[in-house]
């Protein structure tokens, strides 16, 4: 009886806890809707990035995101062998103006970009960015998939999650309703629409295709070492596993005299 009562109390307590947890999330956008799990092709233990997707994603980034967002940790040279050839990267870099200097006369000057340059910021400083975006600061995207909970899924869900606010929820002028964003009101408008970008490789640029490609690009930008890391991990873990068997056998071998000791009972009756 006593046990049963304890179980019942425990059950009631657990239900109460769950109930409270449920209450906290009654308003879907208050804490941000949690993003679904998408089957990213590079999620597997031995899966590398889809490099043509990185290339397409870079195109989306360049044509859509880069208007407001920086990715200042990424250099053009990083793209060589990842999404573009060296010649393509030289052309890409030379399309941007980079401020350099001072020169021999002490003047700052502009020159065409080189592969060693980092991606240029769209705004000269944070204040300019806030001024241009109604007070909101578009965050730097170079680490965005690592800097958010469940980063890749979150960014994908956010990009494709724009919808009309539910009844009773009003969004301030200049903000946009997106349940995946904490609080539900985001300054960034919906940027991806079908056909927004014309892909080099002829892939049909639907909204979700562009979101997927740009997230793949941003994942690569945040973790450029991932392919190398997974390959190295596989090699090391394989070696350590073999070493574990060897060490286990070696231990048994060395310990056999200790383990096989016995005290023999020799009784004369």
């Amino acid at each position, binding site marked *: 009886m006593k046990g049963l009562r304890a179980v019942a109390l425990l059950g009631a307590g657990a239900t109460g806890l769950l109930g409270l947890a449920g209450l906290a999330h009654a308003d879907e956008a208050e804490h941000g809707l949690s993003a679904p799990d998408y089957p990213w092709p590079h999620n597997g233990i031995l899966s590398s990035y889809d490099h043509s997707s990185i290339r397409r994603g870079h195109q989306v980034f360049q044509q859509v995101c880069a208007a407001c967002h920086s990715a200042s940790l990424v250099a053009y040279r*990083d793209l060589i062998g990842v999404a573009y050839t060296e010649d393509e990267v030289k052309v890409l870099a030379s399309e941007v103006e980079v401020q350099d200097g001072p020169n021999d006369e002490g003047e700052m000057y502009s020159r065409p970009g080189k592969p060693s340059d980092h991606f240029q910021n769209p705004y000269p400083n944070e204040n300019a960015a806030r001024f241009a975006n109604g007070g909101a600061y578009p965050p730097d995207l*170079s*680490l965005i998939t690592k800097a958010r909970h469940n980063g890749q899924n979150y960014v994908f869900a956010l990009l494709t999650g724009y919808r009309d606010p539910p009844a009773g929820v009003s969004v301030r002028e200049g903000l946009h309703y997106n349940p995946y964003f904490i609080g539900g009101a985001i300054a960034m408008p919906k940027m991806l629409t079908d056909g927004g970008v014309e892909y080099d490789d002829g892939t049909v640029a639907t909204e979700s295709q562009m979101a997927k490609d740009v997230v793949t690009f941003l994942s690569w930008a945040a973790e450029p070492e991932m392919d190398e890391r997974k390959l190295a*991990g596989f090699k090391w873990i394989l070696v350590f596993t073999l070493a*574990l068997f060897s060490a286990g056998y070696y231990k048994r071998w*060395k310990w056999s005299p*200790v383990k096989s000791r016995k*005290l023999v*009972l020799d009784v004369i009756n």
Partner: protein
Amino acid sequence: MVRRLSILKQPIFSTLNNHLIDYPTPSNLSYWWSFGSLAGLCLVIQIITGVFLAMHYTPHVDLAFLSVEHIMRDVKGGWLLRYMHANGASMFFIVVYLHIFRGLYYGSYASPRELVWCLGVVILLLMIVTAFIGYGKLRQMSFWGATVITSLASAIPVVGDTIVTWLWGGFSVDNATLNRFFSPHYLLPFIIAGAAILHLAALHQYGSNNPLGINSSVDKIAFYPYFYVKDLVGWVAFAIFFSIFVFYAPNVLGHPDNYIPANPMSTPAHIVPEWYFLPVYAILRSISNKSGGVAAIGLVFVSLFALPFINTSYVRSSSFRLIHQKLFWLLLADCLLLGWIGCQPVEAPYVTIGQIASVGFFFYFAITPILGKLEARLIQNSNVCEDLKKKRRFVDNQSFFKSLIATLPKWIHQFQKSKHENILYTNPDYLFQLLWFLKYHTNTRFQVLIDICGVDHPSRKRRFEVVYNLLRATAKSPNKVLICAKQMRRCRSLQRDGHDLSNRYTARDTQRDELPMENIACRERESQGIANPWAIPNRVFETQLNGEKKLFIFFFFICEREV
């Protein structure tokens, strides 16, 4: 006889030899004892990766974040160094926490190893400080963590605010703070290494504890090669575990906000420390008053320091401590619960759960002084039984033993009930089956083996008896049973066999047989009726009972008291 290289007899080398090669170690150490050397490995990994990272890192408020990204992106193998260092800190804490809980379970802190334990707590404190100041790399969560934790010092009366200003090197966490964190972060690991050497020196004074918790000086083996190869297995297994995090989940143990540069203008929704601080953080937060919270954290470490001195149990290993064993697992569950609470927001159910769990944590230390005495009374249960009988709460076990004999007619030859004990006689051939049955059968549950002893009755024809003294603590009363293996007339000799795949160590082990206790017990007295492979003579004493002379040889005795 293997001829030793003479260099090992030279100064310095002889010290190394005594502590790293020939060092006598209990033969029955389990893999839980590998965590000590694993912790040493973790420290070495942290120091090596840290020294290399420091070559590329810039401790400046404007450059720290960028220099870490420089390491991750531009330094060859830099990502590996950084992920090893960041996850290595977590691994170090996992290993050390397991090491601590092993010590708690097997009573490794108990006399005479108090100093070993206290030095261990000092190492833990140093590790916490080192990890905390190393975490502050001017990233969003570490910045706010540093702000919150350092401002705890303001709880100290009078000088608190001065200390905080001194820690910060100004009036907020800034460049000066970063630099005064970075410098000791490089220094402290070497102090930890020094403390670890002291920890080891203190340990080697009395040698390792062992899973049985009994005096193991009669059965020790050399550290080399046995524990090198055993620890090697642990190291390789650890390397696999470590690799899984470094290569496949390098960021799961960290917080995503740490990939955002620190912003003093925006506070994160919930400030969460690294996972290894969560239980202590939960205790801190369970008291809403700042000074109270700091005092509670102080009490955590005071309790840890005090543990060996408030412990009253004669028995070390929890395998033989029925009540402590359960309390231990409760403590572990409580710490995990506290860890979970530590990462929850401060709101309705979590605060109360955290407070209850904090009380639970301190309850363990509060009960420790009483627990040992309580368990000692259980073991000396004859007196307890007498007391209980007087109070008419004693349940007569006669029917229980009758049914036991009826169940096992082949194994139990004779049953005898004395004043305090029930004695079952069996044949040595059935000893293990009977012990197994008594320990694990639902209706018996004699879980504690108090001692094993050999008894020599010189006046009898069948002189030798082996007695297993078992105890069970039931809901109503503790009760005790002695099992006597069949009495034997005479035993001729005791042999110890050593087999090696290549028969290499047999000769050496034969020599090791000549242990003083065995000489007394087995060679001179010719009283060796031991039907147990791990029973090693431990205590010998003679007694006169009812005019009949008896010689007791204790092979196994869980209490460290002299008998």
